[in-house]
């Protein structure tokens, strides 16, 4: 597990906790929950840029490289899809949709780390 994973672990967990708490408190998605999901997206973008730099500088992915990039690309789409899905109907349930993003991103980041090393 590398620093990229731990960044996504912390940001993803925080985002999920914030969004789930907002959902439990019967709040509709607001700036706080949306921005926490945006932070997850940002963490994933940092992972993307970092990975491109590492591959460009000659580092090798131990596992299937296209599997790694597939995971990363899917993970990057996830927050955008969730935010879109949640603003179509702004109820407390949409916050639970947003809460699912952080946890999913963290699981995917763990898998990406396994593929890389």
């Amino acid at each position, binding site marked *: 597990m590398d620093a990229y994973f731990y960044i996504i672990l912390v940001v993803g967990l925080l985002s999920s906790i914030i969004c789930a708490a907002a959902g439990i408190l019967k709040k509709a998605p607001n700036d706080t929950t949306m921005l926490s999901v945006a932070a997850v997206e940002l963490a994933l973008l940092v992972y993307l840029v970092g990975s491109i730099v590492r591959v460009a500088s000659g580092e090798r992915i131990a596992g299937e490289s296209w599997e790694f990039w597939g995971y990363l690309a899917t993970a990057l789409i996830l927050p955008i899809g969730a935010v879109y*899905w*949640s603003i*179509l*109907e702004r*109820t407390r349930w949409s916050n639970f949709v947003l809460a*699912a993003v952080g946890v999913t991103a963290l699981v995917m980041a763990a898998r990406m780390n396994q593929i890389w090393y």
Partner: protein
Amino acid sequence: MEEAENVNAKSSQDGASTPAGSASGITGAADARQAAAGSAETAPAETGRAVTGAAPTAPATDTRNTGPGRLLIAVYAVFAISATARAGYQILTKFSEAPLAYLLSAFAAAVYVVATVSLAKPGRTAFKVSVAAVLVELVGVLVVGALSVFDSVNFPHETVWSLFGRGYGFIPLLLPVLGLIWLYRRRPAPRQH
């Protein structure tokens, strides 16, 4: 039903701030909301109120893409994507190793895709398709889960449903149960003769 009221209250408040993207109208309510927001600006307030008051009740009785259903659909969508990717990867790279397990993977992926799409659609047909897909999913996860436990020699290869979905935090086992509860709670009203 508490959720449905909540939705209507929210949509009339937020109508103006809804982005243009929602005009594509996954729900009928989104269209009505858009229309209501538009007419409230141009026409007298009564027109807007009439539209908001009448429209949501019609589709709300036969949709499952609202309230907790949205979370359910989102989780189904994630499983549809991951199961499809996994099955595609298995079939393209190592199909000959275990054709049965990987065809099962592909079948599971197809079930998740059908469930996601039919849950998101309003109407009686979509409801029936959803029930069928979720039932198949429940039977699949139970049968494949049991086979992978009791006959691990013939089912050593991983699918989404192996070991009752343990590789996915047992969500594959929980999902069809929650799906059936939600479908029952949002079942269409008996046909009027």
